[in-house]
């Protein structure tokens, strides 16, 4: 999730500025102005997620070709596009905003990502596997077989990074930011995870684009 990473890189800058004040960083409110109110899971979005998941299940259950294509193309396109857009466009812009603006943006943006990204990932992967089975791309005799195995490995690496590093850190930061006095050091430590993983996940997204266009053109 390069996008999240780019943005959190900006948040790390925020933390660095906060920490540069020394003692005050630990015992003063690290964010200027009133702390943003953060709803960790936007409840209003849950019905939309439920509809999309029901659509995904129906597409797989009825082997609905258009539904599978829609889930895979729309989900995959948005997943990759959001990652790259947020990482390369939103992240640098965010890094130039004032600290309160960054905090307010993040407080509103990150909870939406908590719902959006897992939904897009589920749409993409579940429909993708079903499509690969239906189209025969998983058969050992298929010219796409080795490419798909490679894509499994890429997705596996991304899944481990997302589930074991990104999502826990994302939620931990949101919980930290909900405190009246967020601990800048904790946020900085969690942001480091994002920065180190950003390079890996960015490469994975580019690799996914190469694999999928290769598969589609054979």
């Amino acid at each position: 999730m390069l996008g999240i990473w780019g943005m959190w890189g900006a948040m790390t800058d925020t933390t660095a500025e906060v920490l540069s004040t020394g003692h005050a960083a630990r015992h003063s409110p690290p964010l200027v102005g009133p702390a943003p109110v953060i709803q960790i899971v936007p409840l209003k979005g849950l019905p939309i997620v439920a509809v999309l998941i029901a659509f995904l299940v129906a597409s797989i259950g009825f082997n609905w070709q258009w539904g599978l294509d829609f889930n895979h193309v729309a989900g995959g396109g948005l997943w990759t596009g959001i990652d790259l857009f947020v990482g390369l466009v939103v992240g640098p812009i965010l890094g130039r905003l004032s600290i309160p603006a960054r905090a307010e943006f993040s407080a509103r943006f990150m909870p939406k990502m908590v719902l959006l990204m897992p939904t897009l990932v589920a749409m993409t992967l579940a429909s993708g596997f079903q499509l690969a089975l239906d189209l025969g791309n998983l058969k050992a005799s298929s010219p796409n077989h080795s490419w798909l195995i490679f894509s499994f490995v890429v997705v596996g690496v991304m899944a481990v990074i997302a589930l074991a590093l990104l999502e826990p850190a994302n939620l931990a930061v949101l919980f930290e930011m909900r405190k009246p006095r967020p601990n800048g050091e904790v946020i900085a430590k969690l942001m480091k995870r994002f920065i180190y993983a950003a390079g890996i996940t960015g490469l994975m997204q580019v690799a996914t684009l190469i694999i999928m266009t290769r598969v589609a053109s054979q």
Partner: protein
Amino acid sequence: MNELSPQTRAQETSGQRFAPVAEVGAAALVLIVIGGIYMASYAPRRAPLGPPIGLTIASATLVLANLVMLARTKGFAWDKFFLVGRWTLLSYVVAAGLIEFAFVKDHTSGGPLVLITAMLVLFAVIVPLIISFTVARYQSSEAHL
């Protein structure tokens, strides 16, 4: 004034007093993912079950070790752990159920289905464990003097 030495602050921030639950959980997740990729790479044929069974047993062992370590943890924000844990567990049980549904739909049965179910159960436990532990460790009172 609550002045703290850099070392003490680093220890607090890193949460070093807690057992490596997240790290062990990540290792267990890696084993499950490798097993899943191994089995998926054989689809639609039936994969040899030996390697994924070994990986699943190894992963389950790590999860059990993790639960033991977690039970022994002191000064932990258990309220936050269970708050985050129950919702993430619900979320990942649904996700695992979706994956199971896809395999059943594709006529997976017998040993492979049992193995996939075991892997999905582990998946549905490991991820919430990592997430809720990570949130709770930084919510624990010791980490915020």
